[in-house]
């Protein structure tokens, strides 16, 4: 592979890792504004991560090596996911994994996080792991149906090919894509522990899912876990852009000036998405845990409707 | 000369054992006589294979590949049963269930019973065949009531009355046969009842008379073979008598009865164009298999369970002979052999197991494998063999019968398979807790004789995997003799 491809690959991975906490900060800031609170600075997550890296790591007595490896594995998988998702341009590594492999990757991260949570053997860890897996196994089929609908339209499951096909499609109202977009947003909210499914800010034992798993972590492991969570949100956003806002992606052959154009496009899309997420979070309240299956069943239903509409109306 | 030897040895044995039956060496004598009979039978078989059919004793005795294989089988099982009865009776005498007088009666009747069966198999004269069958019934009645318990008395009475009536009807069938034969063969008396003559001239016999004769003969000898509507005596008789007798009854006497039915079918089929005899046989066969397999579910006595299993297998054999044709006949003969070998092996193991537990109720027999592995494994292997589980020979013959049935009588195959499945669940469900699990059985005073069990199962396993060529030709020859379309 020629050097420029590797360069763009590394650039994009670096950009993703760097931009993720910013995106998270931006979402928290929008939320604060909407709830007319004084907003924390946008770069607050960066400072939090830097602070955590300096602290001494505190581990439980009988925490096993799995507990200490898990943060690195989760962070690693999220970075690889970022390397695969064409946030700015089609990347050489895209051929290595298509959308289904991506879902598998997220599943790996989720499994490792759950196992680590169960390792210490406290009530909260196992509690969180159980709920995370429940949300996981309900969200995955919906996500796969979303990808299916997209691949039905573009005859392939590789993300760059899908986004390119959708980008070059004649502009127009596509109900199937609309339904799938709704489904995807619901899945995004569930997977990233946003408000309707789980409140990212809370540490209330009974309701937290994602936070429960990080309870035992401290210092650099917690930093990595937080960073990975931010990166996950960023990845999901990028998948959303690739499927539903495919314009502004530098296709492989376009060269450096297309890349220059792609960065502001990505930032703009991120801003819009962040605002969107904040609006949804302020408007909805957190569901009881056993309402989550209906929430995700709704997501699955939307995806299936999208597919049926595509099959029947061909749109 | 071998035939004379074959018939004289058991008779002489019966007489000698009548006098010395109670002495300590009597069981060995019994074994010796049975061994002698087996040697004579093997010699006769070799001669028949070499020279083909034999007409001996002024045409009164006729030996062809069909009945010589049954004779060898009878003599072989007779020998192994006498071996088994040697140790079984020693334990029974120790337990005080049998006195010296009855032991003498047992040994002499045993040899007499072997003699009557061998005569029935070798005779050419249908009348003599009837007399031999009646004599066989008489000798076994005394054996069934050996223990003098109320149950054995009742079993003996029912056995005697039902089989007596059955055999009487068979006599009337023979009379009608004689009547039809006399019209064609002239009335100078003796040759009219000889099977060889009847076989030669069967095309010209009067169809209506033959049909009626076949009905009487079928109901008569069918009662002896335990076919369903006429089977009621069989479970009681096979369960109440001493186990060696149950083994010989289930293993051999049923075969002789089926042999007689087949002899008559050959004659009747020759003269009739209609297939009524085969349909009757098939009807009896399917009815026996279905009813016996459902009756298996309620059994609590181990020997009654395997008696019903005998009814079921007799049903399969009758159904196969009913279908006729070379493959079905071959399979029926194979099934006869493996069934008598397996069933007698099972009764050997059951005998020892019942003695160990002191009762024939299956709930009292538990954990055989833990106390005496040989009996336990013997019973389990025998049960698996009788249920038609593949490596054993019973599956080979059932495979042939069922596949032939699929071609000629497709209606019968699902019924048979469902019945076989029900029987499988019933028998295996009862034998498994007996063989496995915790145990409370006490040891036997004398070591059990397990050589017969494993020789039988070894032969059945061999027949399942590899039917030696000369045996295969022997069966094919017999199958062609039994004929049918």
């Amino acid at each position: 592979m020629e050097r420029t491809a590797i360069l763009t690959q590394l650039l994009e991975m670096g950009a993703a890792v760097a931009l993720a906490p910013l995106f998270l900060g931006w979402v928290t800031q929008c939320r604060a504004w909407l709830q007319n609170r004084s907003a924390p600075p946008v770069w607050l997550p960066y400072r939090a991560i830097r602070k955590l890296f300096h602290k001494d790591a505190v581990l439980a007595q009988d925490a096993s090596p799995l507990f200490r490896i898990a943060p690195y594995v989760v962070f690693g998988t999220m970075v690889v996911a970022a390397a695969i998702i064409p946030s700015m341009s089609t990347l050489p590594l895209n051929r290595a994994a298509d959308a289904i492999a991506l879902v598998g990757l997220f599943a790996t991260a989720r499994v490792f996080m759950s196992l680590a949570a169960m390792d210490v053997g406290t009530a909260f860890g196992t509690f969180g792991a159980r709920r995370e897996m429940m949300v996981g196994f309900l969200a995955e089929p919906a996500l796969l149906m979303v990808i299916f609908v997209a691949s039905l339209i573009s005859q392939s499951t590789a993300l760059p090919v899908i986004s390119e096909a959708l980008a070059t499609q004649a502009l127009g109202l596509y109900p199937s894509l609309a339904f799938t977009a709704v489904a995807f947003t619901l899945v995004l909210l569930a997977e990233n522990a946003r408000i309707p499914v789980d409140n990212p800010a809370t540490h209330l034992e009974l309701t937290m899912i994602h936070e429960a798993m990080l309870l035992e972590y401290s210092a650099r492991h917690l930093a990595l876990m937080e960073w990975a969570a931010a990166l996950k949100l960023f990845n999901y956003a990028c998948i959303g852009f690739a499927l539903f806002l495919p314009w502004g992606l530098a296709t492989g052959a376009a060269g450096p000036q297309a890349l220059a154009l792609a960065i502001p496009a990505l930032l703009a899309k991120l801003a819009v998405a962040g605002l969107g997420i904040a609006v949804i979070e302020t408007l909805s309240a957190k569901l009881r845990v056993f309402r989550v299956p209906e929430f995700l069943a709704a997501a699955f239903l939307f995806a299936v409707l999208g597919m049926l509409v595509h099959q029947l109306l061909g749109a | 000369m071998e035939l004379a030897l074959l018939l004289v040895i058991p008779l002489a044995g019966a007489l000698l054992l009548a006098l010395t039956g109670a002495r300590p060496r009597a069981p060995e004598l019994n074994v010796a006589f049975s061994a002698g009979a087996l040697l004579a039978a093997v010699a006769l078989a070799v001669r028949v294979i070499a020279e083909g059919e034999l007409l001996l004793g002024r045409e009164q005795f006729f030996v062809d590949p069909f009945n010589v294989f049954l004779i060898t089988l009878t003599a072989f099982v007779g020998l192994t049963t006498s071996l088994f009865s040697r140790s079984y009776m020693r334990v029974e005498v120790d337990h005080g269930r049998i006195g010296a007088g009855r032991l003498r009666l047992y040994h002499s009747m045993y040899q007499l019973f072997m003699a009557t069966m061998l005569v029935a198999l070798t005779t050419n004269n249908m009348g003599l065949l009837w007399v031999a069958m009646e004599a066989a019934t008489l000798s076994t009645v005394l054996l069934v009531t050996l223990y003098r318990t109320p149950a054995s008395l009742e079993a003996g009475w029912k056995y005697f009355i039902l089989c007596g009536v059955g055999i009487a009807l068979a006599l009337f069938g023979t009379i009608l046969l004689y009547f039809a034969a006399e019209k064609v063969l002239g009335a100078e008396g003796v040759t009219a009842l000889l099977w060889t003559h009847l076989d030669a001239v069967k095309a010209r016999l009067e169809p209506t008379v033959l049909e009626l004769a076949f009905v009487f003969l079928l109901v008569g000898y069918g009662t002896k073979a335990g076919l369903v509507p006429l089977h009621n005596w069989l479970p009681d008789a096979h369960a109440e008598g001493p186990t060696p007798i149950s083994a010989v009854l289930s293993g051999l006497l049923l075969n002789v009865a089926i042999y007689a039915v087949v002899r008559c079918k050959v004659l009747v089929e020759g003269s009739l164009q209609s297939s009524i005899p085969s349909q009757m046989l098939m009807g009896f066969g399917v009815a026996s298999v279905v009813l016996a397999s459902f009756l298996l579910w309620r059994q609590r006595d181990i020997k009654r369970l395997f008696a019903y299993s005998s009814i079921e297998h007799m049903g399969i054999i009758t159904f196969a002979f009913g279908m006729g044709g070379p493959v079905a006949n071959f399979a029926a003969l194979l099934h006869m052999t493996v069934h008598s070998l397996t069933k007698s092996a099972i009764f050997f193991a059951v005998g020892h197991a019942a003695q160990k537990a002191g009762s024939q109720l299956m709930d009292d027999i538990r954990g055989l494998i833990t106390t005496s592995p040989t009996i336990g494994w013997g019973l389990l292997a025998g049960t698996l063999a009788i249920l038609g589980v593949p490596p054993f020979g019973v599956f080979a013959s059932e495979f042939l019968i069922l596949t032939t049935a699929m071609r000629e009588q497709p209606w019968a195959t699902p019924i048979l398979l469902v019945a076989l499945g029900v029987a499988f669940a019933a028998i295996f469900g009862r034998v498994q807790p007996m063989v496995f699990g915790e145990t409370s059985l006490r040891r036997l005073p004398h070591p059990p004789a397990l050589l017969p069990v494993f020789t039988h199962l070894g032969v059945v396993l061999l027949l399942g995997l590899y039917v030696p060529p000369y045996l295969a030709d022997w069966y094919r020859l017999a199958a062609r003799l039994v004929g049918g379309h």
Partner: protein
Amino acid sequence: MPVDLNAPLPACLALIGAWALIGAAGLLRPSSVRFAGRTLFPLGAIVGLGLAAVAAVGLARPAEQVVLAIGLPDLPFHLRRDALASVFLVMLGAAAAGISLFAAGYFRRGEGTPPGLLCFQYHLFLASMGLVLLADDAYAFMVAWESMALASYFLVVSQHRIPEIRRAGFLYFVVAHVGAISLLLCFGVLQGGSWLFTFDAMRAASLAPGAATLAFALALIGFGAKAGLVPLHVWLPEAHPAAPSPVSALMSGVMLKTAVYGTLRVTFDLLGEPHWSWGLVPLAVGLGSAFYGVVFAAVQTDMKRLLAYSSVENLGLAFAGVGLAIVFHGVGMRALAVLATIAAIYHCVNHAFMKSLLFLGTGAVLHATGERNLGRLGGLLRRMPWTAWIVLVGVLAIAGLPPLNGFVSEWLLLQAFLFSSEVPVNFIDMLLPLCAAVVALCAALAGYVMVKFYGVIFLGQPREAALARAHDCGWLERLGMLWLAAGCIALGLFPAQVVAVLGEVAGGLLGEVPPRPAAPWWLLVPLPDREASYGPLAFLLVAAAVIVVTAVVVRAVYHQRVRRSAAWDCGFARLDARMQDTAEGFGQPIRNIFQPFFRIQRELPDPFDAEPRYRVTVGDRIWGYAYVPLGALVRRLADLAAYVQRGRIATYLLYSFLTLLTLLALVLWNGPRS
């Protein structure tokens, strides 16, 4: 003896014979653990490896036949090795090698049948499975098929002192026998009228559509009973936990796959042109079994029952793949049919390695702790590190996580489902993509089940004090598990090569060898004209690189200071092991969401209980709806039939009297013959 490589069938037969001989050798000294354990089982493992190697060589060779002397006089045993049989032989050999190695260290004195007898039954089981894959006529197939069932039955009831194990053995053998009966009927229909029961005759016979459908239905029932498809699955969760772990590994790993082999053989080889509508039945039943199996696996509290239900799920997915292949084949989309068949066979091979590894893991745990109930395990990662880490590979594989092999077969299956929308039959082209959602749901739930399995057993605090004395397994057992884990990793990282080989096999079976896609060796592209690809090796390298870089950067830039302290207990001082999530707890969301599936009995403590206990038992509804009424029906019929035998001699005489009269009337009514 010189093994000439272009005709490996005699070599395969020799190796299968070697297995039987090893088994027989076991009988010489039945009670000595050293003889059976140290010499015979390792020997069996080597023979297994040999068989895998020879069969692998045979993959590329053309099919060959041999007729043995044994069998029925006019139907001797015909044996045939073709590509399909070779693939399954490779699977059998490789899995058996690992499992036998594990078994060498696993069997100890005093547990059920003496080791020598166990070795005999074990190797007879292996030999009969080998024969099933090679059989080429109905009689040989049936003999091998039921000998396989018989040998495995003896292995299942090896600890026959426990009543549940006897009941499980009985149930297993009866269902196996019912399956065999329907197979016998299927062969009867299949021979079509040529009345030769060799498979060649069946291939030549052209059946009427009705007969072919009947044959397919009977074959599906027969093989479904062995594979544990839903209505006939009740024996599987009873029999597998009852068997000793290496045996349940062999049964789950390899024996269930003979059913998939049989279905493929009957549908594509013997029947030749299956109608597309046939495919819908295995597809629907397969997906139903997959969903049913995984949902029940999630609520189990016994680790081996959990794995047994997981086998039901995986076999369901395999049959769904086969069903899809039949649908594609029927409508003429041959390339996609090959893809679906590849997915099904690949899933069987994967499952053989993954599930065997997990069952061996439970075996090691069972020997270390003597406990099977998940409620009394926990925290074994610290005491049994070797077992825990190797089993982790199996857990990740079966949960379908990318770099490992479980993901590859699911990926292929989903790709196949993706194209199912192009099936030119209306309604079906919409329903099939929905099936993809069910496959995805099952895969996700499998992840849930495996997290529960691994988390409750190996992670967290030990729930019983006795677990502190648990010791890791011997080196032989580790070697066996390592071999299987290596198999999982290899199958996961080099899918392109495996799919190429399976392509030839499936192509040979379906009559169309797929063109090799032009892709680098490390990339798996299912169909040349489609833009989907998956390169696990690159994937793994990049991930490893990133993880190493992060670790190095974090350690280099920041300090490595670590301090140990008590786990966070929210201020509530007495945090003990019982506060962890129990197996029932972990299954609670599934019980709650999929309520109608289960027959739940709750035992709630009442306030006056001295020692209150909360117990919930989850039953199988199908047992109540199908099997209990069936048993009752047979018992009622038996009671009805018993009226015939009421003891009065007069009634018996009446029976024979009436039989005589009816027969005479029958003869008279037919009128005199001319």
